[in-house]
């Protein structure tokens, strides 16, 4: 099936600073794609290019097979929320959404009205008096209201309260269920973890990892909490294992971090009597921090 987003060698420089360096990115239809990276990695620059606000200095990007900067009609098929969302203070919430509705040529406004209710915002309110979170809601409603085939969202939950974050995630899941594509740049890793199928990690304008979430977290250090029947616990045997780090003993319980396949650890444990063992799923946070730390180390070098 044809990619919804396809970037090849996408490069963007601002003066001598390279914001994006030969980025290759492909997002297939019906995917919720998490786009991660530390501040200044080039995430917003990528998204701005995908909606046609900026142009690459080298390489190319195509959305629905077209150049976003020179295909205004194509933009009817996408919804966008920028990282720094600014609305026109001279208008009302309803006036703003009505303008976008008309420019989009939408005739059906039922879903827009439903979103206004779900995000609990009064269309009669003046934009001037809105808080950051409420402005964000208007941006989100504007992006979702036309049920576009592609949603490009840059830090979409910035400023939203937890209840509204849930509404946002529900709207993403609806889009996912309807087979629409979402490109989600976010620092809130729990929300990416909840909705994204695939993620890409960007670092200094380069893609350092891309793949299914499950694959990305596979190599992450796992936490084990092992409770033995009685003392003494085999702490020396465990500490000697190459994958074990941060081994800590509390009575009959051993806590440790483990990297790699756990066969050798299980072999040691098999020789002892256990009361319980817990190995919670590694979190995306772990994976993200690992890439981030690598980036910092790289920068230090």
């Amino acid at each position, binding site marked *: 099936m044809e990619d919804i987003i396809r970037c090849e060698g996408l490069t963007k420089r601002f003066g001598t600073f390279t914001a994006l360096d030969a980025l290759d990115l492909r997002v297939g239809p019906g995917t919720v794609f998490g786009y991660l990276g530390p501040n200044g990695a080039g995430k*917003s620059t990528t998204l*701005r290019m995908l*909606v*046609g*606000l*900026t*142009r690459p200095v080298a390489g190319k990007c195509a959305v629905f097979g077209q150049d976003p900067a020179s295909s*205004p*009609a*194509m*933009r*009817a098929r*996408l919804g*966008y929320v*920028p990282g*720094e*969302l*600014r*609305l*026109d203070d*001279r*208008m009302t919430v309803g006036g703003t959404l009505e*303008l*976008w509705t*008309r*420019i*989009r*040529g939408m005739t059906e406004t039922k879903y827009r009205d439903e979103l206004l209710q779900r995000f609990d915002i009064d269309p009669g309110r003046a934009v001037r008096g809105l808080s950051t979170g409420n402005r964000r809601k208007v*941006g989100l409603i*504007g992006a979702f209201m036309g049920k576009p085939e592609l949603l490009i969202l840059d830090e979409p939950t910035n400023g939203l309260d937890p209840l509204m974050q849930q509404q946002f995630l529900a709207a993403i899941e609806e889009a996912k269920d309807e087979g629409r594509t979402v490109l989600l740049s976010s620092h809130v890793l729990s929300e990416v973890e909840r909705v994204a199928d695939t993620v890409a990690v960007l670092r200094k304008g380069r893609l350092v990892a891309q793949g299914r979430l499950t694959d990305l977290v596979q190599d992450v250090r796992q936490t084990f909490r092992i409770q033995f029947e009685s003392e003494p616990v085999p702490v020396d045997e465990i500490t000697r294992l190459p994958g074990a780090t941060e081994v800590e003993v509390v009575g009959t319980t051993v806590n440790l971090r483990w990297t790699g396949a756990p066969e050798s650890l299980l072999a040691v444990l098999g020789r002892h009597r256990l009361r319980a063992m817990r190995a919670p799923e590694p979190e995306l946070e772990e994976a993200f921090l690992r890439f981030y730390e690598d980036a910092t180390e790289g920068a230090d070098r």
Partner: protein
Amino acid sequence: MNENETATARRTKPALEVYRCALRNQIRDGLLWGSSLVCLVLMVAALWPSLRDSGTLNDLSGSLPGGTAEAFGLQEFGTPAGYLKGNLYAVLVPLMLCWFGISLATSSTAGDEDAGRLELLLVLPIGRRTVFLARSLASMTTLLLVGIVTWISLIACCALFDLDVSFEGMASVSAMVTLLAMLHVGVTFLVSGWGARRGAVLGITSTVMMAGYVLQAFLPLSDALKDWAQVSPWQWALGADPLSGELDLIAAAALTVLTLVLTALGAQLADRRDVRSV
């Protein structure tokens, strides 16, 4: 509706929405500037009967060195047309209208871009050129409305305070100063389209405005340089003394064509560059 008509409607309707929205946003500014121009016309016209009867107006223009009176439009200050020209149409009204046009156009282009307000509009299914052209049309419409209100107030005040100026003269001078202001809107769209920030746009366009005035007002004082006054759009608009004469159609056409060219060029430049992020 056939396919071509549908495609045309698809292009024009969003443009119309942007135009309407920009116009709505400019109405308050238009009312304020229109009111202040009406007040200015009213105040100047209201003083005419007493100044005329005092018989000092000709003495005033006669007492000034020839060049100075010419530079500030104060020749024939004792006639109704000369009085209006010296007090309103040589400097003040064109300057106010030009500045109003510049501020409107800057606010709807570079100002909105600097504030990050253009971003959400430019990701909608509407071309960047269309947005710029619709907004320039809105600025020119507001300017035209203010020009018309000023013209009507001039007609009313002349009738009320016994200023004997021809209807054609009032129409001509109002048309020419409005066209001059529209040219400055065009310059503003060109500079904004090129990518200058709000402060730079205001700086460049106001320099163009003041340079135009200075060239038109002072170069004619020198025999060697007076022909160069023709490069000033102020000279095109006011050189033929429209208040007491007929409309200079060639100058009006030149101002209109140049305005359209600058605006189109600005929209083209805007279409080819990056939109600034906040």
